[in-house]
């Protein structure tokens, strides 16, 4: 806008530069910087505080958080509601398992190292995402949502039939091996002189994994790409008229989100071990949607909180169910409900109650808390 600069009225404020850079920074306020630091430090302390079963839930939670972030990219930021996330996670899971897993009488596997199978899973999933993009260009809202749901069913069919890759229904296969620089995360033992049990190793690795992808996603979100996504979401006609290529960015959104889904799938089942095609159904897609809605749409930290919430929800409802009086701990028989039915019901109820109580999600709650002391209520 050189011409404008010539105008006296429009001369830019020289000193401002640094402040813009700062303004755009990842952690643009000292408050943010401090809280993030605290979070991370705490994160690394957790494995020495929690019991193994909780640790594993947290580990899986952090891994699925990456998947949730991916879904948030396409659905939260770009506004393309996808019920097909399970499909992309599945593609990633099987790519990872085939590349990094071992051959058996039933399934193929190439025992490749993690630095190949993890990115590989992401890339293959992203390619699958590229294929969906064009649909997104034609379809809107729920039509797109159900079509992506169609993907899940078609995918499920393929997963069931491609037995040499997936092991087939009711049988399944193992995920890839978990070796990072020769350290086997499936074994316990000492790392750098530190005695670490399997769960602790996996937790720490998952934490790193999450941090890396969270930062990548944040970069996307604050860059021109992320802005273009939001523009497409808020008003696609206007976006096109000011120069945003709708096709390009819708496709890009799906590809990126699928990449995140892919790596999630691969790592998740590497930690979990055995999995079978039934895993990648409507339910999984819905769970991820729930994660971002409960966490907070179009926020990275929200995705993480949501994923953690869902991860621990089962355990939480279990704990509550067990303390409710007058409920048989037995499997069938007496009582109005068995503890397991109560547990399942609580799972549903918690979701309902939560969303009614705070439609803006955990992120909304977090904002309220922050705004309270921050005293600046206009920042949502």
């Amino acid at each position: 806008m050189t011409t404008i600069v010539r105008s006296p009225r429009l001369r830019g404020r020289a000193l401002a530069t640094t402040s813009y850079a700062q303004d755009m920074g990842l952690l643009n306020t000292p408050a943010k910087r401090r809280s993030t630091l605290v979070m991370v430090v705490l994160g690394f302390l957790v494995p020495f505080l929690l019991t193994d079963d909780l640790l594993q839930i947290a580990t899986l939670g952090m891994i699925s958080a990456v998947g949730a972030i991916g879904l948030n990219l396409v659905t939260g930021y770009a506004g393309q509601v996808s019920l097909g996330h399970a499909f992309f996670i599945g593609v990633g899971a099987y790519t990872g398992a085939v590349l990094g897993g071992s051959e058996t009488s039933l399934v193929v596997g190439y025992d490749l190292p993690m630095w190949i199978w993890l990115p590989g899973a992401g890339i293959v999933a992203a390619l699958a995402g590229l294929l969906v993009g064009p649909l997104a260009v034609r379809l809107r809202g729920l039509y797109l949502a159900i079509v992506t749901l169609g993907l899940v069913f078609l995918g499920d069919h393929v997963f069931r039939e491609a037995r040499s890759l997936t092991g087939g229904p009711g049988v399944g296969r193992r995920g890839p091996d978990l070796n990072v620089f020769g350290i086997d995360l499936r074994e316990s033992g000492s790392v750098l002189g530190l005695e670490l049990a399997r769960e602790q190793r996996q937790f720490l690795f998952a934490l790193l994994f999450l941090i890396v992808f969270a930062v990548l996603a944040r970069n996307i979100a604050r860059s021109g790409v992320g802005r273009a996504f939001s523009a497409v979401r808020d008003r696609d006609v206007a976006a096109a008229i000011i120069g945003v290529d709708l096709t390009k960015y819708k496709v890009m959104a799906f590809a990126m989100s699928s990449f995140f889904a892919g790596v999630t799938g691969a790592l998740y089942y590497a930690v979990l071990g055995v999995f079978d095609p039934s895993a990648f159904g409507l339910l999984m897609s819905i769970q991820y949607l729930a994660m971002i809605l409960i966490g907070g749409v179009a926020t990275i930290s929200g995705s993480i909180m949501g994923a953690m919430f869902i991860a621990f929800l089962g355990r939480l409802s279990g704990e509550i169910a067990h303390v409710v009086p007058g409920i048989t701990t037995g499997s069938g028989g007496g009582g109005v409900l068995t503890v397991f039915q109560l547990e399942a019901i609580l799972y549903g109820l918690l979701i309902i109650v939560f969303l009614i109580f705070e439609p803006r999600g955990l992120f909304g709650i977090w904002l309220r808390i922050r705004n309270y002391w921050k005293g600046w209520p206009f920042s949502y």
Partner: protein
Amino acid sequence: RGGDSGSSEAGGGITDEPCPDAVNPDNGCIYLGAISDLTKGPFAPLAVPITDAQEAFWAQVNEDGGVGGYDINLTDHIADSEYNPELHNRKYQEMRDDVAALAQTLGSSQTLAILEDMKADDVIGVPASWNSAWEFEDQILESGASYCFEAMNGVDWAVAERGVANKVVAVGYAGDYGGDAAAGVEVAAEANGLEYVALETPAGQENQTGAISQILGEQPDLVYISTGPAEMATIVGGLAQNGFTGTVVGSSPTWNPALLQSAAAPALEALYFQAGPWGPFGTDTPGHQKMRDALGDVTPNDGYTAGWAWSYALLATLEAAADLDGGITRENLVKAAGELESVDYEGMLPEDAGATDGDPNETAFRQSVISRVDPSAPTGVTIEQDFTAGPTVSDFDFTEPCFSLQ
């Protein structure tokens, strides 16, 4: 952080403290776990009675004074896996330090999902499924003939008693259960010189149109089904509606008494027979009797029968481990599980059915029971032919699982 996992120190699940509200307060307590399908999963209708029966069984054991100075507690560690390998695994992680053994782990891929950890922890388990692969796993304590053998016997019986001579179609779920059964059917078909066709059909009564029309297209005189009850009934109903007059034999999980109220009832009475690992709920043996007494008035269901019968093997193992030096520890349980010569099933199964000492080809139990529909019977079926090992299964060289899971 909590007790180190992966460690197999004998403590896990075995204490000298009495059980919570113990029957025999001066006994120690052995905690057993059960991971089953208790709410949303596809096998819940079967798994709930299975689990109930097992609770009743171990309660009964305590009534009778416990095992080797211990009472048994199952109720504290029952978990719902919704027939989902992932949840199955999680639930195991939650209980792995606290249980000495698994009184039930339901489903094949589900059990596979924890098998490695079980080995690492020296935990043995009773499977709630009749997969032939379990015969080859020392820490899995199966009972009764596998889906595979069950199928061989079913076919042999049909050939002998129903004049089946031309063609058999095996239709069932894909995977562990259907696959294992189909493998058995194939062997038997070959042995009996029958033409053999395998079909896979998905769960869901609304999804059986394909199976039905394909079967009709094949025009077999025997159909061997390995699905759930709903699918079986739909298929048989559909076949009858289109004038099918041959024989239908189903694996044990294909029957549910409620089907007698369905539109398919007449067809079932005319065509359907059930191959099973043991006599149905109403059978007259001490074991069955004990079970019925223990359960009181419940809607009869052969899930109960299965849960009860499966438990004897674990009881026997506990007793055997108690006699080893060191008494009942995880290690001794694993050891004992591998060297059982016989199990007292109180007549539900022959004693030698429980043998695990030696390689599967000798020890695997090969007899099944064939039942026919009988509205007057408690679970709608009564024994047509008692424990028999057909010619096929008797000659079968059992060196590897009929249907590999790995």
